[in-house]
């Protein structure tokens, strides 16, 4: 049995007090414990940002990589050893800004990875610049006269990219979030979980209060999570009422399923001594 306390590290998180990242960390730990995963068989991969510190504070294997590149690093890990559970944590700059291309291609590849986007709509660690998901008009240190760009909508991009599991959580609702992470991790294929994560230091617009007044659980109504077009239409709802929960899920082969090379065992378990190259070498004669 993996218990919550097994997942605690000696080091303690260095996030600002009250940061939404604490709740996401708690939800991930809870999900790992609930699924009874062996901590030594889980790898949490991050890029750079406040959110990217997370792997340090969960007692599993971890890879704190570079800005925007958590997904390719995670992809390499998963392909090398698909027996591992691979979870990516990323920020809105990390995942939807500099790293967005990898995210989109990962979604269409449908590798069995869980992606958790810490969406605080700001660049936290670099002290408060605008992010790809910042609200239009947001005044930040890099946009003192207000941002003039239409924000990225991670969910609609996920749907457009062929993602097979598209969900939105909210750091203020850890029960729902834990559930989504469990579902996403159990989902065979790539799970995109965007999470509203209030940054209490820099983002004075999208606060806990802001979300408390707006979010509701999409899955508490009869929403058909297998209807792509409905999901697309619904994820544009970002005004006075903002849906959270599972928007879309579909089952199809994962990337690893389609690779005969991985049928017998993961790459890292294969015997690499005595590879016979004679037959190929002969072709050059």
């Amino acid at each position, binding site marked *: 049995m993996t218990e919550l306390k097994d997942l605690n590290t000696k080091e303690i998180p260095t996030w600002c007090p009250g940061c939404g990242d604490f709740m996401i960390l708690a939800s991930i730990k809870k999900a790992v414990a609930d699924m009874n995963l062996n901590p030594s*068989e889980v790898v949490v991969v991050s890029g750079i940002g406040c959110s990217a510190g997370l792997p340090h504070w969960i007692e599993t294997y*971890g890879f704190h*990589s570079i800005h925007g*590149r958590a997904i390719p*690093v995670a992809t390499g890990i998963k392909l*090398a050893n698909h027996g591992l559970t691979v979870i990516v944590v990323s920020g809105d700059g990390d995942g939807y800004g500099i790293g967005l291309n990898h995210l989109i291609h990962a979604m269409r590849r449908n590798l069995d990875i869980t992606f958790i986007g810490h969406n605080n709509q700001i660049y936290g660690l670099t002290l408060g610049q605008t992010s790809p998901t910042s609200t239009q008009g947001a005044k930040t240190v890099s946009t003192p006269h207000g941002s003039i760009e239409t924000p990225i909508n991670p969910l609609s991009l996920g749907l457009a990219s062929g993602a097979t599991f598209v969900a939105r959580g909210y750091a203020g609702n850890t029960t729902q979030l834990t559930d989504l992470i469990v579902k996403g991790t159990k989902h065979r294929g790539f799970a995109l979980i965007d999470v509203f994560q209030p940054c209490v230091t820099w983002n004075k617009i999208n606060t806990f209060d802001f979300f408390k007044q707006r979010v509701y659980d999409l899955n508490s109504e009869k929403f058909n999570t297998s209807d792509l077009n409905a999901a697309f239409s619904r994820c544009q709802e970002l005004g006075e009422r903002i849906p959270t929960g599972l928007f879309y899920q579909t089952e199809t082969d994962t990337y690893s399923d389609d690779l005969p090379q991985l049928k017998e065992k993961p790459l*890292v378990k294969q015997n690499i001594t005595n590879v016979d190259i004679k037959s190929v070498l002969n072709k050059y*004669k």
Partner: protein
Amino acid sequence: MILMKDFVNWKIGGEAGYGILSVGVMFGKFCTRNGLFAFNSSEFPSLVRGGHNTVQLIVKKTPALSQYFEVNLLVALNAETIEKHLNELSSDAAIIFDGKEIDIKKYKTKKSHVLIDIPLTEIAVRHGKKIMRNTVSLGASIALLGLEFDKLEQLIKEAFAGKKDALIPINIAAAKEGFNFIKNRNIKFNYQLKEQKQKNHIFINANDAFSLGAVKSGLKFVAEYPMTPSSSILSFMAAHELQYDIVVKQTEDEIAAMNMIIGGGFAGARSLTATSGGGFSLMVEALGLAGMTETPAVVVESQRPGPSTGLPTMTEQGDLMFALNASQGEFPRMIIAPGDVTEAFEAGLNSFNFAEKYQLLVLVLLDKYISEGNTTVKEFDYSKFKINRGKLLTKAPKNYLRYAFTSDGISPRVLPGTLGTVYKANGDEHNEKGVSDESEENRIKMMNKRMKKLDVLKKELPEPKLYGDKNAKISLIAWGSTKGIILEAINELQKQKIKVNFLHYNYVFPLKEKKLLELIKKSKKVLLVENNMTSQFGKLIAQETGILFKNKLLKYTGRQFYPHEIVNAVRKLK
């Protein structure tokens, strides 16, 4: 009296899409099966079809180590070929052309040239398609050179076996007709080849040789984005992915490729990416991540002339200083620059051992000239090869520390998934556990630890190889792909009674300088030879030893040297 020559420098020219590259390889294989040695090189613009393409093949009884300038047999599939390459012909060269398409009188051929007008198109079209002119001319070429047809028939069968079976008989017929066309005429040609005894040779280029070595050494994961002249590594691997259970991933870009192999290496699979300069540029940030996390990774960078897109289908040794210094901050890396296909195979074989043993980044610098230059060589010997994964543990010791300080700077490694422990790989400066640590004490120790690996590695590496006369007063210094060219030049100089020796660097960094210093002390004249403008290897040597070269032979036209250019430069030194 006419001196018969037992070699030939054959060249074929025409537009892309005329099957020039493939016929060049087929001819090379043919020669190889005849116990001869062949070396091919090609030149083509960055187009899919059209443009002026050429393939050259030097064939000899003794090892053919480089391209040659002087052409002895020119196959002109279009008029441009004659126009452009007439000046390269030896006075007794032959030209094979189709008189119906080329008005040979328009060109200043010499009386001594052997002009062979063959209805290439007519024959090709009669048997199949115009593109088969290449086969016709190959048949004609081997007849002219005095070789037998049977091995060509066999090669054609093999080339089209499987999906294109229908092409076999028509190609054989077309080749045969070209062959007979010559046989039926009594053409005097000074260049005559004879089947030789040595067999079991292979005809292969550095990309394939490296790939084979890598496969042999247990490669399991390839992430690559296509880029000339490295792309054939991707297709080689894809073609053999099921045979060897290798996962081959074409990525969205080179950033992804490099980061993926870091993930793969971290998880424990021997992982490779390959690219050229532009793609390597995009990998730069991740190189540092490999360095900081001490993740084994092997990157092939096959160079082509820059800056930027430059001359994308040409060749240059222009990326050495870039490879040496790419990425912010300071961390150890290893650079191997194979000088020929055998060294490329060995690089494939050994890179992963180095990468895993020292837990560092291994960069293999090739260039278009050897990546695509096929050579006849002895079958590779890998009988002594052993996989060495360094300090890789299958079980975690108690209180395991991934980045433990050790005397050689190398920390025992366990793979994620190993039970009973966990750790973090971390691109931030970190302590022995992998946890971020910003203290001065830890910083110095970690920097020293990582850099220490370079010292240890340097001790293990062999000194560069010295070729030629040990006691010569003239020494040449070079690295990577100029090796064969210089060796051919040395042969020529020897004939001219000029004694030289040649120090060749296959292992480029960390730089072994002992032999170099000895040599420079002993020699009267030293010539540095590089296929770039700013003598990059010279800079590396200066950094490490303070030696500046007075004499440098540098070429940066986007083409490799010919042996005669080296010969001339050495003669001028005297």
